[in-house]
């Protein structure tokens, strides 16, 4: 009896966490239920079919392109004699340092009639007409270069760990190279591909910045427009409900596709890999990799630096609009402040849930909690902002549009990152250590503190950094929930760039990139260790 009571008290923090994580979504849902039938009818007749097609098409194509691009790059770097591959391997992850919407902002101005690109080529003496980047293919282009690293990192680490003896054995048995690739390597990489695909799908489905910058209508920007442009949330909530349904369907579908098979090799040997000789393909392959780096990293950063230099000597009329250094420092502080707050809270709250899921995997309640508390990651920031706004406006209006609301949005949105990372980290700490401490007479909490914690701290750091980075780059919730006088960097970038003041957007954008840079490399270094394995998704 006493034990049971204790268990309930112990489960309370986890329970509260789960409530915080799920209530915003439930709130959107219940609000959408109250939307009148006439509005539904009109939406089904006008907007929903088109948005459904456009969102779905974008997700499908970008997932395919990133799988192909990420897969080819991983293969080139891991399994061929591509020159410089040791250098290229970490470099190919670097497009992640520039948030996708910043890439979009750069390319909107680079491409098109009279764009920066045409001027650049004109200065070199070539008169070239570059097409505008707006619309479907432009969006696919930007999102592909912005998100292929998700696929690339997972597939290349999986390829790296693939046991070469298996392919060796197949070769000895006379299986042709093509058949070896299709029959052996591809199926073994399937979990890695599907993990990458899920990440890309989630990203594309929740993206606001790129699709709005490139004027491609999806559910997310339609919902955002409704929230920001109307005095009534009904349409926003109705569209949100459809989007939630689409998301759930996609996640389930992908789960079904990949649940079937999972391969593992007991020995992890990387010696004795026979590299694929590229031969005459060497130079084209090198150009291909260089092209990816140019479009994903160098060009956007170059454009930002170009704008930044221009912003230093703007005409008097434009200078008056330019951002001052104190303002830049102020919003930089806001970004760091709110992101570290969210990251710290996420890590602290993730701990008990992760602990329970690893140490007591049989508990059904634990598993349900674990699943529910991850819902935030699957849903766009726009939806979470809408949910929180609905709750606060009905309960504590003073908290709506506050630093606290923004903090909560980040926490709900990125909690799953902290949870998955700390879970993966905890898995690597054998329970035996802790059991020994218990046997020596230490209390559970003390033995956790003394034994598990030190081994576990690096994983927590990674979790912290992940949430910090995501929060610092988050756009739609920041736009919707910030209080007056608390503009994070992303809002500064967006407010300037959406009005076409690209030079003024350059300084905050570069600051985001610079702040991201060291943290992303910390994450890449710990990549193999703490990325959630596909089965835990």
């Amino acid at each position, binding site marked *: 009896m006493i034990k049971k009571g204790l268990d309930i008290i112990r489960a309370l923090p986890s329970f509260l966490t789960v409530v915080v994580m799920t209530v915003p979504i439930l709130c959107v849902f219940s609000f959408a239920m109250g939307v009148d039938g006439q509005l539904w009818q*009109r939406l089904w007749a*006008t*907007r929903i079919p088109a948005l459904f097609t456009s969102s779905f098409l974008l997700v499908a194509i970008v997932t395919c392109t990133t799988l192909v691009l990420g897969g080819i790059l991983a293969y080139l770097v891991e399994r061929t004699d591509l020159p410089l591959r040791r250098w290229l391997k970490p470099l190919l992850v670097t497009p992640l340092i520039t948030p996708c919407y910043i890439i979009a902002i750069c390319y909107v101005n680079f491409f*098109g*009639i*009279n*764009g920066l690109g045409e001027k650049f080529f004109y200065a070199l003496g070539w008169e070239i007409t570059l097409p*505008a980047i707006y619309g479907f293919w432009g969006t696919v282009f930007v999102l592909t270069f912005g998100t292929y690293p998700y696929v690339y990192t997972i597939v290349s680490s999986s390829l790296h760990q693939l046991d070469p003896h298996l392919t060796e054995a197949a070769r000895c048995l006379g299986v042709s190279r093509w058949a070896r690739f299709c029959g052996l390597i591809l199926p073994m990489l399937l979990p890695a591909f599907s993990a990458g695909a899920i990440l890309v799908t989630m990203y594309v489905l929740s993206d606001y910045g790129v699709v*709005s910058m490139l*004027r491609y*209508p999806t559910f997310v920007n*339609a919902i955002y*427009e409704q*929230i*920001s*442009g*109307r*005095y009534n949330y009904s*349409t926003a909530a109705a569209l949100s409900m459809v989007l939630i349904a689409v998301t759930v369907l996609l996640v389930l579908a992908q789960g079904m596709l990949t649940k079937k098979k999972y391969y593992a090799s007991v020995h992890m040997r990387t010696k004795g890999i026979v590299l694929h000789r590229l031969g005459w393909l060497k130079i084209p392959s090198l150009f291909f990799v260089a092209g990816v780096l140019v479009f994903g990293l160098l060009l956007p950063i170059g454009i930002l630096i170009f704008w930044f230099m221009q912003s230093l000597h703007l*005409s008097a*009329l*434009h200078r*008056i*609009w330019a951002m001052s250094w104190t303002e830049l420092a102020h919003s930089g502080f806001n970004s760091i*402040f709110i992101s*570290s*707050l969210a990251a*710290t*809270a996420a*890590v*602290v709250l993730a701990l008990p849930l992760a602990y329970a899921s690893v140490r007591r995997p049989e508990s059904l309640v634990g598993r349900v909690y674990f699943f529910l508390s991850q819902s935030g990651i699957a849903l766009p920031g726009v939806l979470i902002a809408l949910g929180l706004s609905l709750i606060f*406006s009905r309960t504590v*209006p*003073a908290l*709506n*549009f*506050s*630093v606290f609301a923004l*903090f909560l949005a980040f926490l709900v949105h990125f909690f799953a990152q902290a949870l998955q990372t700390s879970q993966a980290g905890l898995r690597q700490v054998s329970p035996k250590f802790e059991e020994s401490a218990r046997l020596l007479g230490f209390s559970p909490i003390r033995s956790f*503190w003394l034994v598990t*914690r030190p081994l576990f*701290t690096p994983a*927590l*750091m990674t979790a*912290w950094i992940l949430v910090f980075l995501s929060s610092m780059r988050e756009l739609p919730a920041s*736009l*919707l929930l*910030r*209080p*007056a*006088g608390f*503009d994070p960097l992303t809002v500064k970038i967006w*407010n*300037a760039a*959406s*009005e*076409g*003041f690209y030079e*003024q957007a350059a300084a905050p954008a570069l600051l985001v990139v610079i702040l991201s840079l*060291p943290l992303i490399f910390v994450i890449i270094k710990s990549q193999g260790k703490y990325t959630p394995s596909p089965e835990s998704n």
Partner: protein
Amino acid sequence: MKLNNFSTFLRGGLVCLGIIFSFNDLAVAQEVVVFSGRKEALIKPVLDLFKEKTGIDVVLKAGDSAALGQQIIQEASNPSADIFIAKESGSLEYLRLKGVFEPYVSDATAKIPERFKAGDGTWIGVCGRSRAVIYNKGLIALEDVPKTLEDLTREQYKGKIAAVNASNESFIAWVSALRIYFDDTYVRNFLKKLKANEIHLLSDSHTDVRKAVGRGEYPLGLINHYYYHLQREETDPAVTNVGIVYLDQGPNDRGEIVNVSGAAIIKGAKHLKQAQQFIDFLASPQAQQLFAESNFEYPLVSGVNTHPQVLESLNCSQASALDCLHVMEVNLDRFGELLESTTDMLDEVDWH
């Protein structure tokens, strides 16, 4: 980088949580909180000048008028904003009807003409703007540019016009004005005809429209007049080859719609004195001058001249553009009650 000490970690978190809850109380007495539906870049010079002149700090939240309006309505019992600035009178009227504004009349606001402010003193117009058509001189000749509203739906302009979508306030107000002047059936048909004529709805921002026309992506764009002048200010000579046409300007024509961007004090404002100072400042010749100079809008106070470039584009020899422009006669204060039904109509015709 490494944070091995777990208790530092926890302590840091607690300190941060402490800060968060005290954050809202750090209010400084000498400040005024401004919610602006006008884009930050288009209001910043005026805010800076106000700060310089009075020493009062301006805390700004720039965003979409409707989103800010929602927030003001929700916070009615405990407002965080002191001032609301909107791009056009529809949002101001809508919020006035919701009863969230504090009336304020002073010598300064008395100088604003009656037709450009609320009868009960709740909001004032700050500067005027009219609808207009921007065209790319390289792609279309002046004589081929549409001259009337109905021209826009003609076959020859199929796929050639760029415009904003239903999320733009000025556009919503324009449609409301047409609904007042004509009737709903006429306006709905007009919008449908424009859609059938393959009008390109770029985004919710007129800046995108002016830039697209300037770059030569489209020959024609529907804008507010000052976007034409802003396009001419671009530093790159390749994109400034644009012209402007005001529709329906013949002696017997119905004229262009003129709207105002305006401001109001929020009921229960925490910095009422400063807010009143701010409103007086907006109506002052100095601020009016700045709006006219930096953003090419029509000053509303007599004695402040319209920007010479604006006058030139109108062939106007008067001091105020409003004396030359043929203005469509509609009451600005009806835009508020029509706002929601107008957005419904735009959704119906799928203006997205």
